[in-house]
């Protein structure tokens, strides 16, 4: 059963992404695309001629997608949270190296920003893992989901996690990595056809990755987890529609001061 879920993970993520596009459209009082729009896009991309810049660049995107999928599989199988975070880092670094390997200025800036994003969210993710460990006594997701009361003990840590969700799903105010009008998608820019499709699907997987961290705060109760995910999903899109993009350096500064302080305060509170 669990393997079916793992196999369906990109589809699940695609539905989330499609739902998000509809939701954002409704927030702006327009009709928006159909729910299955991401899949239409994927099928269309299969039908395009594929242009690549050079072979390693294209292959790194494929590797990025599969390592990310492996990470998601690890989440569904209930592995150690730290392994999952570092596997995700691995996937991200593959994409960053790919971005640097072509002679496109947008790709380079995108990679630079992608690196800054990693620097911003990575410590918070690990602190979240440590916080969950302090309450549940284990880094294993399967163990974490057997306990309860994360939200009451780690409210500030949850707020810190909330601050990095927009970075991961590339939403305002922290969508510096993609920055559509500025750097035309950043690292994605040189991909087309089938290889862009892998990047498009890895975006779906990113949704699953970050929202499963939110879900973990629900603990034993699946309902609480689902409500949390839905609430965060709404909130992130609301903020996305209502705010402007910050500069990359500002993003790092905000995360390192506000989110880090929240997380550390919460951990210190749990310990003392």
């Amino acid at each position, binding site marked *: 059963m669990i393997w079916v879920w793992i196999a369906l993970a990109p589809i699940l993520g695609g539905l989330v992404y499609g739902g998000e596009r509809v939701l954002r459209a409704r927030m702006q009082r327009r009709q928006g695309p159909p729910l299955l729009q991401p899949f239409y896009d994927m099928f269309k991309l299969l039908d395009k001629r594929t242009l690549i810049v050079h072979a390693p660049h294209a*292959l790194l995107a494929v*590797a990025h997608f599969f390592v990310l999928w492996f990470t998601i599989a690890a989440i569904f199988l209930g592995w150690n949270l*730290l392994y999952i975070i*570092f596997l995700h880092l691995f996937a991200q*670094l593959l994409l960053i190296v790919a971005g640097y390997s072509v002679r*496109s200025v947008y790709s*380079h800036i995108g990679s630079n920003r992608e*690196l800054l994003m990693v620097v911003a969210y990575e410590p918070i993710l690990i602190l979240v893992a440590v916080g969950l460990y302090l309450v549940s006594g284990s880094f294993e997701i399967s163990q974490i989901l057997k306990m309860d009361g994360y939200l009451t003990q780690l409210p500030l840590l949850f707020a810190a996690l909330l601050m990095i969700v927009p970075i991961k799903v590339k939403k305002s105010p922290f969508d510096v990595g993609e920055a559509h009008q500025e750097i*035309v998608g950043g690292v994605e820019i040189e991909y087309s056809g089938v290889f862009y499709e892998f990047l498009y699907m890895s975006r779906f997987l990113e949704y699953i990755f970050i929202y499963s961290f939110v879900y973990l705060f629900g603990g034993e109760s699946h309902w609480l987890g689902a409500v949390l995910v839905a609430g965060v999903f709404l909130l992130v899109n609301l903020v996305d529609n209502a705010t402007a993009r910050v500069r990359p350096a500002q993003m790092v500064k905000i995360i390192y001061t506000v989110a880090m302080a929240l997380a550390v305060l919460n951990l210190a509170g749990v310990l003392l």
Partner: protein
Amino acid sequence: MELVLTLILLPIIASILLLMLPNQRAQYVVITAVLFLLGLGAFSLYTSMGVLTFQLSHTMNGAIVAADVVLLLFFLYQGRVFNHPKVMALAALQLVLYGYIESIVPEAGSAEIVVDSLSKFMFLIINGVGGIIVLYSVKYMEDEPTSPLKKRLFVGGLLVFLSVMNLIVIANSILLFFFLFEMTTLASYLLIAFRDDEVSRANALKALWMNQIGGVVILLGALVAIIGFKSVMFDTLLQSSGGMILLAVALLSMAALVKGASIPFEGWLLGAMVAPTPVSAMLHSATMVKIAPYLILKLAPALAVSMVGGIISIIGALVFVAASYLALSRSVLKEILGYSTVALLGLMMALAAIGTQESINLALALMLFHALSKALLFLSAGVLERLHHAKDIEDMKGMVTRSPKTVGFILFGFVSLTLPPFGLFMGKLFAITSIASLLKEHPSNLIILLSLIVGSALMVLLYFKVASALLSAPCDVEVSEAIAIPSGFNVPLVLLSFFIVIGALGYIMMQQNIFVVLLALPMLFVFALPSLIRRMDRYDRSQPYHCGEKEPFDAALVYFESSVKVQRILYWGFGSLFVAVAIVGALS
């Protein structure tokens, strides 16, 4: 015991042989044979059981005292010749202290030389990595603009240094340790000044005076040990208890902080980067600076549950973050590597000072894998310097087209420092788990944990920033043909990479944890990618997109320039922490 003696004497014999052999081929034969024997000896010692001890005779002790006095007088003389008051003052202070200690030194209670499991592990690092670096240095020195004699002296000197290192890790007497500590300082001084220009000389003197602070605190530690416990042996000191022990241990750990170039002493290690690259690799990254974590590991039983241990581990952890942060403002590749060495040494010291069995094992693993990876990186930097005359990462843009293989080695080095399943990454991962499990009992470990997390993230930024420079090229770059790496450079690099992979495999197999083994899967997948490249021929190529523009461009690298104010705060903060170690030691 014969094996240990071989490890110490063989490099000296080999260096004498080298001086007599002008033929490069013969030199290679000698060095390869010595490398093989040293590696074999170190490995068979590592697998052997038991603790070896050895008592020095009176004449030997007398010789050491004489050599020590000569050494200190040489430092004093150097200080006079180059008119450097700090060097002179510290050398004079050490002479006075040493004279006084020798007059009150008690009879040796136990053996001066003890070969325990820690020493055996250090043999492995010193002889394995050090030997490969010596092999590399023959080719490197070929193009050095000096006399042939000086070149041979250089390689011979590196070999003699190996035997000094082999001795220092088995010294049980604090005074013998002091002598060898000063010997490594001397080696550092002479090798940094090797190129004999103004900058080298100034940096060499800086290294000399800073390292002599380490000598002074060791002597003070010895003095405390003699007054308090009537012994100058490490093992007696660590077995005894009482008020004074922590002061002695604190003073000795301060020596480790100096040797490990923790902030505010990181200046000497960065200055040392003007030396020829094998020196940077051998002394200032792979072996000599490892004395710092080694010393802390040796003192770990006393440090483990004390305030001193706590403050040392906090200093180490903070150095890890601060050095990674400061490195972000640098653009010379060797300096960046130097800073990251400072940072990782801090981390190793922090783990060693926590002192649980788990964290000590982690510190050991980090030492081994750091030595391998950093040696690989430094040697590759040396190749770029020799073949392409590039030292600054801004000059290395597009290096991937000019020297793809070297860039491959550097990227592999970075990957081995940051990603699963390589040893250094695993060490950091287990460190997080291990420290998190200690949080409940010691909430102060939160500082260490936080530093570890943030420092690791900054290191990723640092390494991949350099990688970006190597991979990217401005459009208008004049493309030259790739230069092949000569085998004199290639063989050591391949050997190091091989050992990194073997080490990583061994380390994950040791964990007895199926999930850890599975972590290696993605890396296998990435290594399989090149086999797919041929298949990509069927896709059409297109040029990159520049919004239709065709002007040359150049994307900038990420730099974080730290302001003078921040630097001043860092220096004062770490300086006062350094002094605080002694104060805490004295109070508790």
